[in-house]
């Protein structure tokens, strides 16, 4: 018998939780392919290292980019490889719970569950990311109180109000931390005339990116290719200019949190003032973002102590208590 699995198939990172064991895999959701033959050359961290550094015949892609399944075939291969790597074969047939963005379409849902079944899962079910995040972040969702969770990932930002084990209000946008990287890339191209890759943009975000002014601001040096001369060039970036450059995606994320608050029933709204909202997801680690949300909503924001793992842990808990919690799968509720 195989051990049952919970998978957080994120646009940026994939995590796998094995029943009775814990997190057994945690790596970037990237796959490198031979452009001509379509063969998979690498996955995970190894493929991530290739992004922007491959010769013409290799392409390193994030198949779930944008919180949508852009390429079904590649996604299916990624799921298959993932299951193989954690020991699933035609003979083991584990049950699998997969977390997906709540905004994905019916067709995308089917694609994910079918892919998992074809890859050897005896049964594959989906659960919404914010629900899994709330379970994993250890919020008291078994009580009739308003629990608000904000999950800011690479490709999506989802805010949900959960009470008594069910979603009361939900707001999901296909804007995430990758859009912040893209805004940085565009800004540097436009204002400084140099081209940088997406990995460099992400490093700039982590090093000096912020959603609100902070006390420890330092400048950063970045090297890229001069668009005019084609030669390597260095520029100095200030936190203020990066903050301005990423204002668009940051404000869309904050606006979606505000919309979710507005959807919550008044009885539950009162609870947020006392309990606060919980921030999870890698995108939530952006400096000053929690303060910015707090300032614009006047509701306290608390950072989960497991921001990157909350979703897979929540799904892991569901796998541990499969029979009791199978009513929480997408499509199981009416």
């Amino acid at each position: 018998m195989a051990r049952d699995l919970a998978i957080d198939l994120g646009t940026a990172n994939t995590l796998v939780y094995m029943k009775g064991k814990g997190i057994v895999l945690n790596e970037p959701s990237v796959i490198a392919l031979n452009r001509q033959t379509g063969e998979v050359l690498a996955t995970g961290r190894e493929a991530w290292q290739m992004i922007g550094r491959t010769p013409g015949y290799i392409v390193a892609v994030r198949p779930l980019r944008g919180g949508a399944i852009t390429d079904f075939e590649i996604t299916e291969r990624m799921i298959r490889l993932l299951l193989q790597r954690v020991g699933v074969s035609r003979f083991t047939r584990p049950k699998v719970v997969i977390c997906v963005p709540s905004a994905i379409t019916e067709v995308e849902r089917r694609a994910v569950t079918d892919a998992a079944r074809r890859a050897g899962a005896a049964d594959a079910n989906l659960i919404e990311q914010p629900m899994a995040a709330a379970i994993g972040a250890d919020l008291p969702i078994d009580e009739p109180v308003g629990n608000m969770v904000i999950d800011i990932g690479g490709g999506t930002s989802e805010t949900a109000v959960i009470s008594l084990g069910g979603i009361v209000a939900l707001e999901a946008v296909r804007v995430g931390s990758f859009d912040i990287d893209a805004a940085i890339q565009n800004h540097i191209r436009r204002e400084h005339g140099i081209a940088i890759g997406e990995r460099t943009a992400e490093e700039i975000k982590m090093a000096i990116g912020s959603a609100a002014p902070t006390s420890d601001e330092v400048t950063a040096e970045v090297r890229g290719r001069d668009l005019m001369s084609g030669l390597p060039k260095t520029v100095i970036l200030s936190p203020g200019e990066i903050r301005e450059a990423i204002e668009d995606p940051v404000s869309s994320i904050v606006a979606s949190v505000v919309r979710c608050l507005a959807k919550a029933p008044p009885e539950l709204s009162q609870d947020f003032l006392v309990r606060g909202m919980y921030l999870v997801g890698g995108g939530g680690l952006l400096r000053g973002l929690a303060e910015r949300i707090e300032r614009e909503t006047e509701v306290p924001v608390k950072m989960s102590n497991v921001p990157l793992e909350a979703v897979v842990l929540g799904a892991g808990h569901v796998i541990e208590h499969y029979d009791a919690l199978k009513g929480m799968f997408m499509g199981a509720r009416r």
Partner: protein
Amino acid sequence: MALIIIAAAVVALALLVVARRTQRSDDAVSDFRRQIDALSSDSRRAVTDRVRRLRDVTETEGTSSEVTPPNEETERGS
């Protein structure tokens, strides 16, 4: 006579339907209870503890995702 049999059959059917319905709602109640119990903080402790252990291990190994200053990367265009 036939009328009595039909009446009896109708009554039996009605009783059956009512019984099924109460049983189903009892099931729903116990399913809901079971679900809520499985979501309690106590029941989740096993999973959260497992992470705490994982945390301790990675921290001693020093593999935390330290932010590196954005340098030494010259990408070949996009």
